[in-house]
């Protein structure tokens, strides 16, 4: 039981990271029906911006976080304007290929610029402490990541539920034409969605830097895929679904590597994916919508 609780705690911080990335996938999908394969790589860029602002500029972890989030917000908007917007009326598959292209570009341009070398997050930026509570081992990293992720998610919920911009985002994703009739600018709303989603990914990137200590230009691929599975698990396009899906994926993954084989860790993610798609393709929170004839 204690072992189980320990795994659960380990899974929560990883799950929080997945949830943050998954939110970006789901928001972008909700609004332009595109699986933004470059999203994991935006997370990677966020990690690097965070790393450099700590290692080079000597900023503290919070400043680094904000800097990363802002940079990636801009990056996300730029990507949308340059690569996705021209394809808004093309086939979905053309947009998908473009997203793959953007993903490869981010990965290999970073690789070219910064070499494949692993960077180690400076220890001093976040001194590790471990606490023993009733036989459970908890580190300040876990608490920090979890708390920060929850704060960001609450902030996001607030934006989406309460602000005018958030409501416009929901309106556009529900019915674009009706939203235009309300006077909502679709272009602007899409840009904002990319900005918010990308900045959440950047925060996740910095957290991964803290969590694993090392970062590299291809680090976005696997967590990106898993977060994507999380988004599908919760029901792609559904924001609370992405959060729940993210936590479930994180917990499941630590459970599997804790109890079973690490070799099958990645397969489990995809096993979950297949299972959910075959049983309930619209995800845990999704509703079925039939085709109109």
């Amino acid at each position: 039981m204690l072992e189980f609780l320990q795994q659960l705690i380990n899974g929560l911080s990883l799950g929080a990271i997945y949830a943050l990335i998954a939110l970006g996938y789901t928001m972008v999908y909700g609004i332009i029906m595109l699986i933004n394969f470059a999203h994991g790589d935006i997370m990677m860029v966020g990690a690097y911006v965070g790393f450099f602002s700590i290692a080079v500029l000597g900023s503290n972890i919070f400043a680094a976080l904000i800097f990363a989030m802002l940079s990636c917000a801009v990056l996300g908007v730029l990507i949308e304007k340059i690569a996705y917007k021209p394809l808004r009326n093309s086939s979905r598959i053309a947009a998908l290929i473009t997203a793959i292209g953007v993903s490869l570009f981010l990965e290999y341009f970073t690789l070219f610029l910064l070499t494949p070398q692993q960077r180690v997050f400076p220890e001093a930026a976040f001194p590790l402490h471990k606490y023993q509570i009733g036989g459970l081992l908890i580190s300040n990293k876990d608490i920090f990541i979890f708390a920060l992720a929850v704060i960001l998610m609450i902030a996001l919920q607030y934006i989406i539920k309460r602000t005018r911009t958030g409501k416009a985002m929901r309106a556009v994703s529900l019915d674009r034409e009706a939203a235009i009739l309300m006077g909502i600018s679709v272009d602007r709303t899409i840009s904002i969605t990319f900005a918010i989603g990308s900045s959440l990914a950047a925060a996740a990137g910095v957290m991964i830097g803290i969590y694993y200590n090392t970062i590299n230009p291809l680090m976005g691929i696997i967590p990106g895929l898993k977060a994507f599975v999380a988004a599908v698990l919760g029901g792609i396009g559904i924001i609370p679904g992405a959060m729940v899906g993210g936590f479930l994926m994180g917990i499941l993954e630590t459970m599997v590597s804790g109890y079973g084989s690490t070799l099958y860790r990645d397969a489990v993610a995809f096993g979950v994916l297949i299972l959910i798609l075959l049983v309930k393709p619209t995800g845990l929170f999704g509703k079925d919508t039939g085709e109109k004839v």
Partner: protein
Amino acid sequence: MLEVKGIDVYYGAIHALKGLSLEVEEGSIVTLIGANGAGKTTTLKSISGLLRLRNGAIMFKGSDISKVAPEKIVGLGISQVPEGRRVFSTMTVLENLEMGAYLRKDKKGIESDLENVFTRFPRLKERRKQTAGTLSGGEQQMLAIGRALMARPELMLMDEPSMGLAPLLVKEIFEIIKDINARGTTILLVEQNANMALSIANRAYVIETGEIVLEGTAEQLINSEEVKKAYLGG
């Protein structure tokens, strides 16, 4: 107030509107009637800027609005109740109404308009915390009308407000339309329910395959043999 001048609109290869012209005078109810696929919805979408013109112009209060971005049209004073209601299904009734006032900044005015909508549609007030998707068809239609009213429009475009509603509700909706007009909003009404529409309209146009084939006062059209023929098959 509104003048549609010889517009041509295409859907891909299909020539949907062929040099269509019509006019809506301030303070009136004008109705556009015709069969399915004749081009009624296309006309409204063109006015709202959702479809682009190949030829022609759309004048609103003296200026051409056919090049204006669709999301700016509502700001000029034209709001639309789209066909099939198109409420934001997972947003609450209140949020839907707020979206109607998206471009407005006058908090007080919005508050009072919200109160007006709730007085007009008490059922919406009861359900304002409910999501729009859970409302009945009639309630959704009222919400769509309320949402359009929240923009405080000078001209309201209504696309088949009676569609799929039980006869009693249809009557209620038409009473509401009359009332909205009586309070100073000009209305362009697209309908399939011809007699109902003609009974409240001042002027009417009959559209057939993208062209106006008949126009006149509502009275003239009600008594026209051609209208009877088209709708009664006699």
